[in-house]
């Protein structure tokens, strides 16, 4: 399944529907992606970067994109899904995609916000493709692996968020990717572009959700350019159906003096892999990367961070946590590269895992490559179980064993959501974490 021939045939089938056809640079970009995936295929566990994540089960079904005219969803159903998203207010700017395609009626373009321009990639590529030429594929290497190449070959729709120079957007901008449950498995290839102009400030939230039982692969790629002295927040919350697969890459490039605050939550999908490569290209750029996965059953989540300290006085912090029930598996790889000449660097990394299930496994891999000498670099990883003393303390106050356990897991996990700014997004994400922890606890009861 999904041999070069299969992929070529599938591309042939949908080619005519892809957005912005005829723009030479775009056709060429897709062709490069297609050639790459046809030639090199998808990563296997023989690839060191994919050692702990075997995608063969993902490739057992044909990767077939859904055409726009095949998308069926009731407005009421969509509104209910939007209403259930953490932190989305009545007037939040919002882009909605179903099975990979933009839904304009459910979206709100937030035109009242000065300096903010958001919309669908498809519409933009149809209307003025040249405006995206500087950004699409600029930082994201087409050939990094098969999933990115595939995404590029089939790129069609996604979110475009542009924050003008100096614009301060106080309200978070939400993007929803919803996948429906269909008779046949399918693939979506969301491709997002976020450009934060110099001195701007904004926060973008990507939500990935799906109908119960949905069988599909979300193969997302987000390209982020953070301009000089800009401050960007990025939240990614993956709550796909536990029958789904999810691969996503968030490619970030930061200019001098800029800051990125990233949060990645992984609660759903049978198997997920999220990559967050950040290049601190300009001096004094900094990024704070936070993540949490909370898994049960046989779920597998892999977070792969790569922080490239390419300039002096750049700072990075990685704070990742995992909760693993049952036979769930969590993988964390945190790479830090300090390039020659990049002095006065600060890089901190921590990954704490709560391994609760008998068959649960946590893999944690700090990978530090340092070619400068004036570097402050720390890393710490822990893999542990619940503290018996704390469990006893809580029970000694009248709280039963099950609730004591839930409280401790909550206390461990909530820190990741607590660090989100601003309200009410923070409250929404804290509630989402609480809900996830409670649902893990309920599942645990049945065993």
């Amino acid at each position: 399944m999904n041999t070069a021939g299969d992929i070529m045939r599938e591309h042939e089938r949908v080619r005519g529907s892809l957005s912005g056809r005829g723009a030479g640079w775009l056709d060429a970009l897709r062709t490069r992606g297609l050639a790459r995936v046809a030639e090199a295929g998808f990563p296997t566990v023989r690839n060191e970067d994919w050692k702990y994540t075997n995608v063969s089960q993902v490739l057992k079904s044909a990767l077939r994109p859904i055409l726009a005219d095949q998308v069926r969803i009731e407005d009421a159903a969509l509104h209910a899904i939007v209403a259930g998203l953490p932190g989305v207010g009545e007037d939040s700017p919002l882009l909605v995609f179903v099975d990979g395609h933009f839904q304009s009626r459910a979206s709100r373009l937030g035109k009242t916000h000065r300096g903010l321009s958001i919309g669908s990639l498809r519409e933009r590529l149809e209307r003025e493709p040249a405006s995206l030429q500087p950004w699409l594929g600029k930082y994201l290497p087409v050939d990094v692996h098969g999933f990115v190449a595939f995404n590029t070959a089939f790129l069609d729709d996604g979110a475009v968020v542009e924050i003008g120079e100096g614009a301060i957007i106080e309200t978070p901008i939400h993007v929803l990717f919803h996948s429906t449950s269909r008779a046949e498995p399918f693939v979506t290839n969301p491709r997002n572009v976020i450009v934060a102009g110099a001195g701007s400030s904004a926060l973008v939230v990507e939500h990935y959700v799906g109908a119960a039982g949905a069988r599909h692969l979300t193969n997302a790629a987000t390209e982020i350019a953070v301009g000089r002295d800009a401050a960007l927040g990025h939240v990614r919350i993956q709550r796909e159906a536990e029958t789904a697969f999810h691969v996503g890459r968030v490619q970030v490039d930061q200019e001098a003096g800029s800051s990125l605050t990233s949060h990645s939550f992984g609660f759903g999908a049978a198997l997920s892999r999220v990559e967050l490569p950040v290049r601190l290209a300009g001096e004094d750029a900094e990024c704070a990367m936070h993540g949490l996965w909370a898994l049960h059953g046989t779920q597998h989540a892999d977070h792969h961070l790569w922080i490239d300290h390419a300039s002096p006085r750049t700072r990075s912090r990685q704070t990742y946590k995992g909760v693993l029930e049952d036979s769930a598996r969590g993988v964390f790889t945190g790479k830090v590269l300090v390039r020659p000449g990049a002095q006065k660097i600060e890089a901190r990394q921590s990954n704490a895992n709560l391994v609760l299930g008998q068959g649960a496994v946590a893999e944690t891999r700090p990978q530090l490559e340092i070619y400068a000498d004036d570097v402050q670099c720390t890393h710490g990883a822990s893999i542990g179980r619940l503290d018996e003393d704390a469990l006893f303390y809580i029970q000694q106050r009248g709280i039963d064993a099950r609730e004591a356990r839930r409280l401790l897991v909550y206390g461990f996990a909530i820190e990741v959501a607590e660090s989100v700014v601003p309200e009410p997004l923070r409250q929404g994400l804290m509630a989402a974490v609480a809900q996830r922890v409670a649902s893990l606890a309920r599942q645990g009861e049945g065993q």
Partner: protein
Amino acid sequence: MSLLEISNLHAEIEGKKILNGLSLSVGAGEVHAVMGPNGSGKSTLAQLLAGREIYTVTEGSVTYDGRNLLEMEPYVRAREGIFLSFQYPLELPGIANSYFLKAAVNAVRKHRGLSELDAVDFLMAARSKMKLVGLDEAFLHRAVNEGFSGGEKKRNEIFQMAMLEPRLAILDETDSGLDVDSLRTVAEGVNSLRGPDRAIIVITHYQRLLDYIVPDRTHVLSGGRIVRSGGPELAREVEEHGYKAIAETASA
């Protein structure tokens, strides 16, 4: 009949004997001090009564309110009115004091057939009880004990005790790590909670806490059993002559 009746209790941890035939009877309304040197079994006694499962009882019995205490789960003991003020209160990052305590109070109230407190009632009660131990209301919104000083942790324990209204409170070295002012405040908090329906066991190494919380009975624990019992004056005797002398006169 006594509220708590410990009879010939033997207990060990990982094969190591800690309690060796300890007997103690505590009636409702009484305050008992249990004193002893390090390693005498004081903390084991406290933890065992609260239900810590790392200890194995090999002989003897513990009856609480006419029932076999040793068969009860730790949380059931708490709901039945046993409160342990920990020597080292645990820090619970991410769990707000108010959330934790409200859950605890309501679990206990429900068990006792009382209506659960809503947020407003809880806050009112908490405010008045925090005053007892001189704890600022801001502590309600912080994570349980996280970053609290030693004194703040102990005050928080007694605050929890005040909220949970136990029938039997066990204070395990509540005086350790306290300066004189904190000690006085904590002791005043405890004294305000004395009452005809409440028994208190004060476990301590030193006599100084007993200057503030004057016990009805004092016991000296040595080698896992009580070797001397007496009135409040026994504490001063310990202070003057030391545990060794007391243990020797007892065995003589």
